[in-house]
């Protein structure tokens, strides 16, 4: 473990965003994960995404479960709110927090064990309810924190560190999320920040359940030859279908590329998701076709990455429940209790 604090010094060319913050202001304390862990790269990508979007750190709440992945919220956005729940319960706690205060940006960080094993049900329900959140699974195919037992996302045929072959079927978190109604779904790789940072930015801007499955090699227990979650394997089998650009500014929105290679998906908040197509036959706005595409390519042994599904008109938990725009935690007694007069009027109408 690194004992020293990360030096305060920074490069003179480091710029400030609209909040007056540098990228370094979005860091947390120094990581205690194994050196080279993919999770640290994801934290760095999260730092960069929040910095680039100029989001005030105190407007963000980070929630997580248990696992190496779930430890990472300590290592980014040190000035944000945070809650480390019990194993697999992040989605429920996040749902509650979001209900109470819809004004914050919620980022849930979880692992494949945390979300596909013990918390599978929690994951499913938070997605189908459309909780407005950025749900990131840092997927390494093992329970890293408890020393590398295979997880529910371990591929059939992948070998464990000591040579044992996995014969169980894997859970594919991406198709689960699409089926369960997530309105923004992407897959990426911790070692490809160019792809990952825009996907996180798009997820932050998206209003609804945004789910990201990020393959994140565990250098301690799952980075050997024969593993399908190693740096080398992922690099060799990674097939990106598109490259995302998140456009906040109308100036930039004029399309320059030849039509057909680029598709703009406008989001209700005005953000435009500009997709530079790599696989020309892939359409991320069509749920059924997307699922079909993923199935076919997975069968060919490809790891499809990019923005894989996005709903042009997403709805979230609050839309479904019809809650007021004011965060519930700021409503006072007078807002919540209509008074004796109104009550008797209601009672009378029911008699």
């Amino acid at each position, binding site marked *: *473990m*690194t*004992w*020293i*604090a*990360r*030096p*305060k*010094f*920074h*490069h*003179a*060319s*480091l710029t400030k965003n609209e909040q007056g913050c540098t990228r*370094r202001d979005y860091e947390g304390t*120094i*990581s205690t994960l*194994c*050196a*080279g*862990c*993919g999770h*640290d*790269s994801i*934290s*760095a990508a999260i730092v960069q995404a929040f910095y680039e979007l100029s989001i005030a750190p105190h407007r963000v709440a980070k929630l997580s479960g248990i696992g190496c992945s779930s430890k990472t919220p300590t290592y980014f956005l040190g000035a944000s709110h945070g809650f480390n729940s019990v194993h697999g319960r992040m989605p429920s706690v996040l749902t509650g927090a979001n209900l109470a205060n819809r004004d914050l940006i919620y980022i849930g960080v979880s692992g494949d064990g945390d979300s596909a094993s013990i918390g599978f049900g929690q994951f499913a329900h938070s997605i189908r309810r459309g909780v407005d959140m950025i749900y990131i699974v840092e997927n390494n195919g093992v329970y890293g924190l408890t020393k590398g037992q295979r997880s529910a996302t371990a591929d059939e045929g992948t070998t464990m560190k000591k040579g044992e072959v996995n014969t169980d079927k894997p859970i594919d978190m991406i198709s689960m999320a699409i089926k369960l109604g997530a309105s923004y779904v992407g897959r990426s790789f*911790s*070692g490809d*920040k160019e792809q990952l940072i825009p996907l996180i930015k798009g997820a932050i801007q998206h209003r609804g359940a945004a789910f990201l499955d990020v393959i994140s*090699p565990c*250098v301690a227990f799952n*980075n050997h030859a024969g593993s399908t979650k190693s*740096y*080398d394997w992922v*690099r060799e089998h990674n097939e990106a279908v598109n490259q995302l650009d998140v456009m906040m500014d109308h100036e930039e929105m004029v399309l320059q590329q030849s039509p057909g290679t680029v598709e703009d998906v406008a989001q209700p908040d005005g953000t435009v998701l500009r997709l530079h197509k790599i696989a020309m036959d892939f359409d991320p706005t069509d749920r059924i076709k997307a699922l079909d595409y993923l199935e076919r390519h997975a069968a060919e042994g490809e790891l499809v990455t990019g923005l894989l599904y996005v709903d042009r008109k997403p709805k979230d938990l609050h839309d479904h429940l019809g809650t007021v725009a004011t965060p519930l935690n700021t409503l006072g007694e007078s807002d919540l209790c209509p008074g004796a007069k109104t009550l008797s009027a209601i009672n009378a109408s029911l008699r």
Partner: protein
Amino acid sequence: MDPTDIENPDYFHRVVDCQWACPAHTPVPEYIRMIAAGQYADAYMVNWRSNVFPGILGRTCDRPCEPACRRVRVEKEPVAICRLKRVAADYKGDITDRLPVVPTKKNGRRIACIGAGPASLTVARDLLPQGYEVVIYEADPKAGGMMRTQIPKFRLPESVLDEEVDLVMDLGVELRAGQKIDSLRALLAENYDAIFVGCGAPRGRELPLPGREEAKAHIHIGIDWLSSVSFGHTTKIGKRVIVLGGGNTAMDCCRSSMRLGGEKVTVVVRSGFEEMKASPWEKEDAMHEGIPILNFLVPQEFVHEKGELRAVRFQKVKAEKDAKGRRQLVTTGEPDVIIECDDVLVAVGQENSFPWIERDIGLEFDKWDMPVVNEKTMRSTHPRVFFGGDAAFGPKNIIWAVAHGHEAAVSIDKLCNGEDLAHRPRPAVEVISQKMGIHEWSYDNSPSNDARKKVPLRDKEVALKDIRMEVELGFDDKLAYEEAQRCLNCDVQTVFSDRLCIECDACVDICPMDCITFTGNGEENDLRARLRAPALIKEQALYVSGELKTTRVMVKDEDVCLHCGLCAERCPTGAWDMQKYIMEMTQAGSACRS
């Protein structure tokens, strides 16, 4: 770009900018760490080996290392490298058993040095342990050169000077004090194997203005006056003193005047305050003592009444660019300024003068009447005559004199062994991993955020009363430790092995300075434009790896690296390692011979 050749000793040397900037290439971070660890004698010996006068230089060095210190790239002020050197000297204790042993059996070679300044003393220090006999001719009664005759005692106490001059003298120098050489031809006839000319630049420049001759009793040439003060011949000066000139000599003149009865001492310079040649800290010290520095005033006349100096008249000028864009001083048209005074000290420059070198002995002089000297070997056009210090290329400073002395000693040693002087061996380099445990290093890798520590000064009232009273008190051990911790350990290098890298990005993510980029290879300018944080100092090389698995390369900008070792700590495969680069300049002796 091609992969960086880190085997080239210059590559990592350039990353240790302080050491690179030091004319003698003193291993600065190495001794600073020793000071932090309280190993003062070790720190002293590292210095003594490379710069011969640590206690003297720790008080007086021109410190070219400090502007080069990399800390200014991330913070306001450099590490107080010079004053830390003094700490090593102040607290070293007894080091006699660490001094070189001089063989009793001599090698039969005899070397003559002219002048006992730092240049000649360095030649003697390097050659005596090799069995040479060294005779130094010195016009003054004692050895030390301008370190003794010019640098005032309130900056350099006599005891410190004596101690370090004696360390050399006691190696067995044969000093012929009071013996001025007035003919090189005659000395050559004495059949020395080599002659080293370290006679300095002994002549102060004149200011031939109206009134100079008439009022000469109260107009003094700065360096002559300072040496007369140093020898105790001059003990007083008038109440109102004008010092003309803006170099370090002027600063010593004005501060000395304040201690010899001057009440209203004024420094006047022709050009701007910024353009003055004096080091910023010397100006600061003078102003701290209440001495005003007036600028843009060009002296016109020494005003006198029947030979009694009354004042100096100055023209007011301003700086303007002429048609060719050159800076020029032109009159402002305002009335002249008259400053009354009792004495004037003229400190407008120093010159070489070699009236005692005959021009027909095979030793060439150039059109400026300076000897033609090879910058590497320090040899003149006469095969047995070498130059160094201020005598070689005009007035410089002590550390340059030392550097010249080392090179001349190497040349003399090679000459006496029948070797080619031009073939000079590279410095000895060692690169050693500093890893002690998983995330433990043999050095303190967490950089301190402290600002530069101020050296405590003696109370002004007390200091100004006695010209021999040292003004600076030096750091105590606590301040020294804190200052030493500011050093970024730039000699502990980040060494990359492309074979081991799995391109996990951990080093990129952790580096607080954004030094590391993994990207496709390209030409230097193209690569520089694609760095995570483009280098601010382009002269600093990029460290480029061989091709990696993904066909990318690792490019590190050495420019602002903190040597914090976090890249190595976060690397899962040990592709980064922190390795100490130790470089020792080759000095006279078997190491310099082929």
